[in-house]
């Protein structure tokens, strides 16, 4: 496959007071993939995400995005480049309507966000696009609902819609199905699949059903370092992965979920 690399880290390392959480990680994410990052608890997956989105400064190493070194940029800059991350919870504006939540993201590209003298009406032309985005995640009927009142799974969907409004090229999802009921897990998995068209997704997920069903590629971290990397089928048979992640070697990677 000759797909180009959209994101690359080299020797990326994060130490906390002598404890190495991310250790010399070289990772390549190919454009258009759904790339899953898995590994035992405390392996450094979230920390790795935090490094990519600049919530933490790396101790060493570089991050290259589309050939540009973004290692030392600020979080908002990174976001504007099209790297957007979803949060685990409450990543919505609770007292805004679903529509306004999406519009919040669309508004940014308008360049009028400091214009305190313009009326709110100047934002109304964004509503069409916002509705489109809501429709992609099945939320068109909830457009005028305050977000606090949405059920959990819908909130996640809204978050995805908002994230997509930013036209991200690369979406980082940290345990997107955590805390969801089975129905929701299924819906969100399909949603991720759907929105992955035309963009790249890097996700952390413990639910192997989800990973196996949509991931193109998997990287396994253990103690901050990469122990395996490759297509799902290949990695899932790696004894080291089974031992580190699955426990008993005879268990299937389908796992406990």
């Amino acid at each position, binding site marked *: 496959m000759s797909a180009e690399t959209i994101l690359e880290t080299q020797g990326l390392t994060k130490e*906390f007071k002598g*404890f190495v959480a991310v250790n010399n990680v070289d990772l390549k994410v190919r454009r258009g993939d759904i790339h899953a990052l898995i*590994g*035992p*608890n*405390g*392996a*450094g*997956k*979230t*920390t790795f995400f935090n490094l990519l989105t600049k919530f933490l400064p790396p101790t060493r190493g570089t991050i290259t995005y589309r050939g540009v070194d973004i290692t030392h940029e600020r979080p908002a800059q990174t976001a504007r480049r099209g790297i957007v991350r979803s949060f*685990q919870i409450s990543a919505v504006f609770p007292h805004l309507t679903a529509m306004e939540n999406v519009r919040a993201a669309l508004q940014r590209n308008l360049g009028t966000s400091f214009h305190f003298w313009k009326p709110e009406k100047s934002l109304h032309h964004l509503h069409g696009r916002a509705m489109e985005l809501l429709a992609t995640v099945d939320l068109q009927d909830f457009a005028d609902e305050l977000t606090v009142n949405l*059920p*959990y*799974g819908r909130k996640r969907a809204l978050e995805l819609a908002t994230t997509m409004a930013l036209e991200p090229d690369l979406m980082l999802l940290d*345990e997107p199905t*955590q*805390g*969801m*009921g*089975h*129905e*929701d897990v*299924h819906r969100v998995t399909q949603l991720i699949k759907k929105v992955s068209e035309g963009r790249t997704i890097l996700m952390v997920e*413990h639910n*192997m059903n989800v990973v196996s069903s949509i991931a193109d590629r998997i990287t396994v971290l253990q103690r901050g370092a990469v122990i395996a990397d490759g297509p799902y089928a290949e990695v899932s048979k790696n004894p080291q992965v089974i031992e*580190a*992640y*699955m*426990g*008993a070697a005879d*268990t299937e990677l389908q*796992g*406990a*979920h």
Partner: protein
Amino acid sequence: MSAQETLNISGLHAWYGESHVLHGVDMRVNEGEVVALLGRNGAGRTTTMRAIVGLTGARKGSIRIRGEEAIKLPPHRVAKLGVGYCPEERGIFASLSAEENLMLPPEIAQGGMSVAEIYDMFPNLKERAASPGTRLSGGEQQMLAVARILRTGARLLLLDEISEGLAPVIVQKLAETIRTLKAKGYTIVLVEQNFRFAAPLADRFYVMEHGRIVREFAQHELRENMGMLQEYLGV
């Protein structure tokens, strides 16, 4: 199954502020039993647990713990009756180190797990003992939240989504732990999204919907109830 009832809930109503969440929950748990509470997101399972401990807003009805009425008691008095609660949101304290977090809940009774046993089960915790609690990874925090109440000697454990965010390897360990605890005679109420985790462990199942118990069945009836569960939970 001994006839001794550890927990008996009847007609339990609970509110968060103005919103009425539980509409008359009835359930009982016998001594030494593992009971799983199933339901969709928002069905009210967490609320049931919180209501038992006294963490919801207003509540009404009856909660008897080992025969003692607890509906009027403040949370710390409920805990003293031998109840250990592991909250869904984990509740790890940022200003305490991992070890301080572990040692925090006062011992309620003899017979809890020792710190050595706990570290044996969750080596991550030992390694990160001096780290501030919330600096642990998501999964590590979950381990800590569970470990914390295993120490206290509480005999009635309310465990809310304890397999959440854990690697399969740890989930297996947790399942073993629950079996061990059951063997030791602990009484356990599990709330689980992860049906496959709960299914083999529980003696009995309750299914919740809209703040009420809608079904109850035993382990041996599991197979014949799968269809119903499919409908309620999409399993």
